[in-house]
């Protein structure tokens, strides 16, 4: 079955071009040119992934991202023309899993899309623990005692990657490769922002993390 991708972009030429590229690579694109209608179209089309331009007329991309994230865990990849730190971080913090800075190459875009669609197919039944957190990998469940914690697929992948090798310190680059599927260097802010988001969900006190620990100058590791 073709994966359905919702492209939210007000630039018709670009949207059309993205459509061509996506169709070429075997995806089924759905378009939306207005931020105000994005949520409606999202609900009606039920896409497997959302490509979202940050600068939109009407409701802006960050707000759209927040709305979608409010009712779904579907992967969101932002398209940004402004790669100012604040914009990127704001976009990531509003719930986007990844971003592609303009101007991008078709292959880059497709690689990002594929990387985000990848997870979810092959998962062996497995139970992992970090600190007082229990992870049911196959069931995509995370809990502290009897309390369920809801994570997006990306956050889940990040946590699982750390939990599988609790003895290893993961550099940001390694996490980018394992969780996001980047072959080459990418923006390590992705990792920072997502670790922060993950911590805000699973840590008792995000200021004093116990589950995801920072190793100064190197990266992150699982807590014991």
């Amino acid at each position: 079955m073709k994966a359905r991708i919702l492209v939210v972009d007000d630039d018709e030429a670009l949207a059309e071009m993205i459509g061509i590229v996506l169709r070429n690579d075997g995806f089924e694109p759905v378009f939306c040119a207005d931020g105000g209608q994005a949520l409606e179209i999202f609900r009606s089309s039920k896409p497997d992934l959302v490509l979202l331009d940050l600068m939109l007329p009407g409701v802006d991309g960050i707000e759209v991202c927040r709305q979608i994230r409010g009712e779904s865990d579907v992967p969101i990849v932002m398209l940004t023309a402004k790669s100012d730190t604040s914009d990127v971080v704001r976009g990531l913090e509003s719930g986007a899993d990844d971003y592609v800075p303009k101007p991008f190459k078709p292959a880059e875009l497709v690689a990002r899309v594929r990387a985000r669609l990848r997870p979810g197919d092959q998962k062996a039944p497995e139970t992992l623990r970090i600190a007082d957190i229990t992870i049911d990998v196959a069931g995509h469940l995370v809990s502290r005692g009897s309390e369920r914690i809801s994570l997006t697929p990306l956050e889940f992948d990040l946590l699982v990657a750390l939990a599988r090798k609790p003895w290893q310190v993961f550099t940001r680059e390694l996490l980018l490769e394992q969780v996001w599927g980047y072959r080459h260097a990418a923006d390590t802010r992705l990792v920072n922002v997502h670790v922060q988001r993950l911590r805000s969900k699973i840590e008792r006190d995000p200021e004093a993390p116990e589950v995801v620990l920072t190793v100064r100058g190197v990266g992150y590791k699982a807590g014991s």
Partner: protein
Amino acid sequence: MVSAIKQVPEPSKGRSGETDAQSPPVERVAPSSTKPTPSLETDRPPVPEHGPEHTDALANVPALSFRARLWGRRAQIVILRVLRLVRTGLSRALPGIRFLLRSLRRRWRRSLQLRTVLTTLLLSISSFAVVGAYLSNQIANNLFQERLTQAESETLYNVKQVQETFDGAQVTNQSSVITLVYDTLNAVEGRGNVIQRRYVFEAKPEQTKPRNRWVESRASDQLTINVIPPELRRAVQESGKEQFWASMEFPVGTEDRPGIAVGNLVTFNGTAYELYLIYDLNSAQMTLDEIQNVLWAGGAVLVLMIGAIAWYVTRNVVSPVSHAALVSEKLAAGQLQERMVVKGEDEVARLGASFNHMAASLQEQITQLATLSQMQQRFVSDVSHELRTPLTTVRMAAEVLYDARHDFDPINKRSAELLYNQVERFQSLLADLLEISRFDAGVARLDAEPTDILSLVTHVLDGVAPVAAEYGSEIVVICREKGIVVEMDARRIDRILRNLILNALEHGEGKPIHVSVAANESAVAIAVRDHGIGMTPTEAARVFDRFWRADPARARTTGGSGLGLSIAAEDTKLHDGWLQAWGNKGAGSNFRLTLPLRQGEAIVKSPLQLEPADVGLSVRSGDRSTLVVNSGAPASNTPALEAAGQGVPEESGREEDTRDH
């Protein structure tokens, strides 16, 4: 001794018997007291007592010397204790005193008002002192002269009277002679309760003529001949009939009073006597004291008033100035709305008005500049967005065409290739341009966190490996450390290193490239050394200039934007690091990046040498042309040229460096 009798100024004749009875002791005492006088100057009362004590002391010399030693020791101990006390007191008080002095000196340096007031006070005090001294001297002189003239004429008259009385006296028996002499002398003292003048009557010593033995000496009150200055006595003794005077002091009760002694010789019955009349200057002295007191008080009041006036006047002048200073300080601190208060139309008001005018135009300019900068920032951001969206479409389209180029005929195929390559180049140029304008707008912000620079180097080398393979250059990393954690913006450092290495590859002519990494306690350095064509000093001086190329005629092989090294310099500056270039024609070049290990700390010394060690061996030192181009930082022992001015490392992010490989 004598005073008991002489207290009564006018003894009647009936009392003479009593005085008679008392006179012999006077006579007896007199020689013993007069004899030592010439040598003892004015030492009056203790003379009789000196003798006995002296003999006593001579008798007990050992005991006395022992006691003296004892006292000496005691005195020594006391002096030592006092000294120690003073020293500890000083050491306690010294910091305080020093602080006081320092603060006073600071006030003196910093406060024009204090300086003016103090100077005025000092000057007025010294001028008052001069004037006061002159005035009181004049007054004292006048008073004295007046009194002296009076004393001299009075003496002349009185002495004449005495001499006449003496001349007309019949010398029959002792008591009558004594009575006569005493009455005459008492008459000299004056009438009424107030003693107008005192006298000292003394037989002239060493007379050859036969002497009147009945009258030896006599004086008012407790006076003795010792009060008379020896010089005066000598003058009187040696002269014939002339009159001499001298100022002196004499005791009255317990106090010493100033006076004038006027001396003459009188003869009585063939015997020469010295007669000194002593005039009390106490009233004159008191008048003088009074005048001096008035002068002191007046001077003090005047000085205080002058001080107050000086303070007031300088305050009037200085306070607008210090107000202006305060306001300009505030202006300099960025409170551009600050203005001076303008009152009246005088010079100060003019100063205030022109100051305010200046501040207003400054504020206007700065606001305008700020708006301009904001506009530029907005413009950059807008251009960035507006250009990128269509460029993305073009780029994607070009790539789709490029991927399908095998289906095209040769012309279309080549066109697709050209389109694709040039879109890539255009995109890279645009990214660099936007990055530079970000720096120019001052919105570039450092996003530093501790990162291992060695893994970053490895990463960069992985990235450029295909390009290196293309040029056929081998890249050698020289490093002793296992890992160096540096607080840095990894993306920027990544970009700098990639630029340096690509630059080295481009100019390395396929020869090996050495990348050295070293650290010391404050800094880490990475040097990228190529052994290619190198550069001349003039070329090295411009290597960080925008769009600059060593040889404009040279082919643009890598298609770089010409902004790579400029951006690297800006990125380095943002880290407070140094980016320096060394070049030597034919011996290659060396680019050294030095970064502080922790942000906010200064680099003391770069861990690596800028001029490569191998150069001295291959090139004769005379031919060696060393040139260092500095970016951002000072330093380096070799002559340095600034390639980039001091910018404002500030705000906001960066462009994704999309010239990836």
